[in-house]
């Protein structure tokens, strides 16, 4: 009897927390789809605001996708070898280097962006191009790729597999592309999903680095919250959610995948 009461109490508390998390999201989604939020639902449902957002901000969405994909490509090209290098280095060195690479995540994005601006802001061409933002995104997402790949490498018995391949005469290149890469595919996948999600949502660095011609989705969001009517901000948020929620589901799925392998 007493434990039944305790269960009910804890359940209601958890439900309250859930309400706190979901109510504002639901309100925002509704506001993005109603004709007039101040009148309420009786004003009717519409896609007018979503349409308007698309006309105003479509280029920010495309730029965010372009940035996320470029960022993914670079983090794979430099992050996977880096994880392998950390695996192969002496433990003390590997820890120190990983700690270093983690600094752009440990320090607020605002500080990283300020450092970049003060150091490279005077190079006009570079400052005005989307590559300037890309640099910030790569710094911020690289540790997530390295960590995801490295943790799979550590559990996959890679040294033994590599030694076996080497004893059969495989060259380093053959070992790297034939043994190392296939064995840490699940780590690359988990890291890739993380990198894309973080890059699409990154605001703190991007806000400082953007120019009127290089606005990303979150920059556009901040812009619309400040200067547009509530329905437009809500519809824009809705578009963002539609882009990010599938990625989140995929991250959880990939996490379960790597857990099963262990």
């Amino acid at each position, binding site marked *: 009897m007493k434990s039944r009461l305790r269960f009910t109490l804890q359940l209601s508390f958890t439900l309250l*927390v859930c309400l706190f998390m979901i109510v504002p999201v639901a*309100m*925002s989604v509704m506001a993005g789809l109603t004709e007039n939020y101040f009148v309420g639902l009786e004003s009717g449902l519409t896609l007018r605001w979503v349409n308007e957002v698309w006309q105003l901000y479509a280029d920010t969405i495309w730029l965010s996708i372009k940035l996320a994909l470029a960022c993914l490509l670079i983090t794979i090209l430099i992050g996977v070898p880096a994880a392998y*290098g950390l695996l192969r280095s002496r433990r003390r060195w590997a820890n120190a280097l990983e700690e270093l*690479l983690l600094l752009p995540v440990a320090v607020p*994005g605002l500080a990283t962006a300020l450092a970049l601006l003060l150091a*490279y802001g005077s190079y006009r061409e570079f400052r005005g191009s989307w590559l300037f933002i890309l640099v910030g995104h790569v710094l911020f997402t*690289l540790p997530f790729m390295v960590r995801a790949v490295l943790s799979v490498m550590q559990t996959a018995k890679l040294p033994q597999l590599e030694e076996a391949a080497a004893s059969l005469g495989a060259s380093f290149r053959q070992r790297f592309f034939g043994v190392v890469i296939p064995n840490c595919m699940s780590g690359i996948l988990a890291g890739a999903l993380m990198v894309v999600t973080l890059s699409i949502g990154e605001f703190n660095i991007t806000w400082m680095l953007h120019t009127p011609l290089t606005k990303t989705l*979150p920059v556009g969001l901040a812009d619309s919250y400040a200067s547009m009517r509530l329905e437009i901000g809500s519809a824009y948020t809705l578009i963002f959610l539609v882009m990010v929620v599938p990625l989140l589901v995929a991250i959880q799925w990939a996490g379960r995948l790597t857990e099963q392998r262990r």
Partner: protein
Amino acid sequence: MTAASKQPSGAASYLSRPSTMVGPARRKRFIALFALLPALVIFCAFWLLPFSRLIMMGAEADPSSGISAYLTILTHRQYLISLATTVGLSLVVSLVAVAIAGVAGFFLARQRFFGKSILVAILTFPLAFPGVVVGFLVIMLGGRQGALAQASLWLFGERWMFAYSLAGLFIGYLYFSIPRVITTVMAACDNLDQSLEEAARSLGANTWQVTKDVIVPGIAPALLSTGAICFATSMGAFGTAFTLGTRLSILPLNIYGEFTNYANFAMAAALSVVLGVITWMALSLARRLAGGNLGASV
């Protein structure tokens, strides 16, 4: 060419040179360095060098006070108050988030019931919301046209709102902290040995005693670690504060203001370095307590 054809023929050579199988230690180290090189070059060129310059810039004289910007922060009330506000707010948020999400997370980890996975999904998916979106959600709750304002207008005939104040920041920071704590607490509870609780119970301990003496000490490192991550994230949360109003005096907004409004680069640099050192220390503590979680900033 196939791999096998490269191999020196015969088992004799295979046995006589075991050290060349993966290459000598020096070559191995060279390969490791070579693999790390691209990442290190980019890191040094675009982070280490610029940030070192930022640290030096913070030592330059602040235009208004005439002394080094670091010293100005330590000697001027305005900066000390904003530093204390930011640290205090982040500490309170972390404590409240750990308390709330600790209870909910433990409940979800231990009980099985219909619809549980939906609750877990609701509590964890806001993990990827950027700070700006969280700020907007706070406006949805406590802004001029928010839920509270509409309810109070209907009940009492006046608009109540909290979004554009420290209370709004508190709610926003709580919003992005809760999912972080929930995921950590659930994982820690899964790893906790349930037989300890059963043993304590069979020895006559009541629920409160089991919670206080077995469960909380068992997941204490995880609680501390996730609390430190929430603290660091709240300290640097620029997006949420930016959406809710730029007049509040907290560190991220101060940095932004000094840089864009006053072009006071020395002060902006010094404040960024101070903020960076605080969040870095908190995250180092978190990693030492429970490795694995990187703790992304919002």
